[in-house]
């Protein structure tokens, strides 16, 4: 009798466990592939804490990969048929992975969300057919950060001057700044990247691609003007050779006070806020040449056609892209928002963010067309090498422009 009782209890227990597991929601682990400029992966997890509370069946597996290895890792994951559920992408990644990304256009929730974003930011996340493939998480812009203490020592009100200054006026001002500040060895440092150089290209009126995006339009008088101006900066020792012709970090040069101005990205505000304590610094408008321009950029999140948990991934991206989550993420990562309706009060430096946004507003739309092209993405390293060959005097800047034009056109064949 007792044995029977125990047996029936066991059967009931097993039944309860079986039914419980049937009723319980299946657990989903979302793989999120990420790279960090600063603390973005931590902020992403903190921003999505409420999402995780609301979705206890979803676990986020955050995989942070160094940026230099990121593109390859993602390529190999996609090629191996095992893409992540969600991936953070830079604007240069979008054209490379456009064929593998799950389109967001045509899905009502994303069509509605897209209305709240700047067109230039969305453009960088579109494929050749104009479909939104990824949602912007933050906007970036290239701009000029200056050592205000050095300008003050030279008796220059840089905030006032920079409202309307040209590059010629910048050169004049810099001669005074270098004279008044013996510690400053150079006037300007520019990140060792084709993207940052392109700020000079666009300001001179040049561009990489033709207006229909089907061929190169690099070998032009405007490009030559930008290249020759860039060479002059190095030849006249206004820019250090150790960045473009060596491997030194421009950020460290600016932080150490060796350089008075840094042409870099808006993400530098975050790093400089933490690291610079011994001089006053700030963001100023880029000097103009033919036009005023920045270079739009940004970071995005997307999911892939073959992602194992696409439905949950789309849900997560939609929540992350709404106003509240986007504002929280941009505020805590110290980034510009790509949302038109964002109203962010940063812990500090709100004025500097506003200057980047002003420069971005003046930027022509075709700059986004260049940087969403896979041809420009593939051309990156080659263009950088060729510019340095010109800076070294191993070839003329005319030859540099012709070589880059020819290489770029070879990708269209």
């Amino acid at each position: 009798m007792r044995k029977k009782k125990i047996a029936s209890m066991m059967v009931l227990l097993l039944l309860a466990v079986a039914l419980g597991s049937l009723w319980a929601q299946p657990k989903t682990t979302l793989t999120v592939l990420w790279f960090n400029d600063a603390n973005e992966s931590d902020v992403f997890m903190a921003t999505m804490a409420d999402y995780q509370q609301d979705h206890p069946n979803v676990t986020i597996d955050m995989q942070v990969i160094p940026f230099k290895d990121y593109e390859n890792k993602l390529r190999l994951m996609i090629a191996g048929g095992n893409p992540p559920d969600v991936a953070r992408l830079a604007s240069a990644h979008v054209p490379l992975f456009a064929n593998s990304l799950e389109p967001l256009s045509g899905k009502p929730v994303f069509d509605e969300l897209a209305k709240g974003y700047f067109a230039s930011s969305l453009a960088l996340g579109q494929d050749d057919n104009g479909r939104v493939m990824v949602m912007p998480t933050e906007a970036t812009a290239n701009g000029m950060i200056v050592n205000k203490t050095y300008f003050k020592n030279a008796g220059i009100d840089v905030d006032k001057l920079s409202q309307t200054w040209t590059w010629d006026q910048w050169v004049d001002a810099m001669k005074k700044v270098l004279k008044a500040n013996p510690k400053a060895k150079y006037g300007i440092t520019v990140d060792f990247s084709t993207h940052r150089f392109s700020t000079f290209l666009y300001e001179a009126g040049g561009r990489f691609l033709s207006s229909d995006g089907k061929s190169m339009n690099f070998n032009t008088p405007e490009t030559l003007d930008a290249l020759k101006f860039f060479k002059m900066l190095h030849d006249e020792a206004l820019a250090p050779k150790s960045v473009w012709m060596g491997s030194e970090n421009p950020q460290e040069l600016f932080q150490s006070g060796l350089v008075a101005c840094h042409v870099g990205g808006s993400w530098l505000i975050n790093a400089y806020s933490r690291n610079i304590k011994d001089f006053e610094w700030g963001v100023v408008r880029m000097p103009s040449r033919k036009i005023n321009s920045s270079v739009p950029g940004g970071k995005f999140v997307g999911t892939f056609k073959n992602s194992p948990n696409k439905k949950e991934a789309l849900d997560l991206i939609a929540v992350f892209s709404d106003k509240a989550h986007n504002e929280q993420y941009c505020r805590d990562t110290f980034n510009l928002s790509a949302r038109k309706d964002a109203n962010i009060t940063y812990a500090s430096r709100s004025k500097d963010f506003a200057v980047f946004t002003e420069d971005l507003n003046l930027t022509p739309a075709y700059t986004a067309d260049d940087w969403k092209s896979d041809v420009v993405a593939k051309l990156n390293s080659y263009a950088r090498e060729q510019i340095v060959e010109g800076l070294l005097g191993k070839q003329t800047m005319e030859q540099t422009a012709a070589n880059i034009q020819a290489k770029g056109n070879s990708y269209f064949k």
Partner: protein
Amino acid sequence: MKSRQRSHGTFEQTRAPLLFLAPNLIIFSLFIILPAIMGLRMSFFDWSILDGSKYIGFKNFRDILADSMFWLTLKNTLIYVVAVVPLLSISALALALPLAGEGKGMGVFRAIYYVPTMLSMIIVGIAWRWLLGYDLGIINYAIRLAGGKAVSWLTDGTMANISLIFVTVWTRVGYFMMMFIGGLQAIPKTYYEAAEMDGAGRFTRLRRITIPLLKPIILVVVVLSTIEAFKAYELIFVMTQGGPGTSTKFLVQYIYQAAFEEDRMGYGAAMSVILLVIIGIFTAIQFGARREEYTNE
């Protein structure tokens, strides 16, 4: 009629050695032979990781022969190999000669020279980049403090090549030194004693006894360092990224750039096949020279 006698060895003599070899053979086949065959096949295709592939015969190879960047990076690589291999071999032997003895403190010195070998090339590259930087580098800081003029260690093409060669020798010399020490310790002391009794000086003993008896080790060192130098990538990429411009851009970096940055996997694979052939030729020449010496002896 005499029937042919088949000899049946024991299990230990026949199958056991094969079983011991099997794990290594499987791993070697899976991770070396198979990828090599796939790479060879890929070199005949216009192959993109994301956009698929198309058979194009020998087009990749024809394009490579007309590619000025290929010839430039091959030239840079050959200069590096020709400089690194003799310098590395001679330095390793020069360090091994005094450190092969059993004297006090020898172990400490051997360890000191061997330590850089154990460091990752990435770490070595970053450390030397900090040391050799033009504006923020420690060495130039010291030179300026002493009243001198900063040196363009990495910002001038020739100096960047010299710096890379120096750092390569610094980081690899300990490894080859240990190989030479092993070879030196295997030479019977009686040879030296007999030579000394005959009045042979230190240089004569080196020339007549040490070098001839070390020839097999020298061959291994030269072959291994040649292969290493042809394949050099991480150290160069971290220290100079191939620059300034293309001054230190070597073939392996160009292969990586073509395959992964430009998504031309087939083209990259074809260049890898050519690199394999070049390394094979160099190795065959070295082994051939050694065989000829044996025949003459």
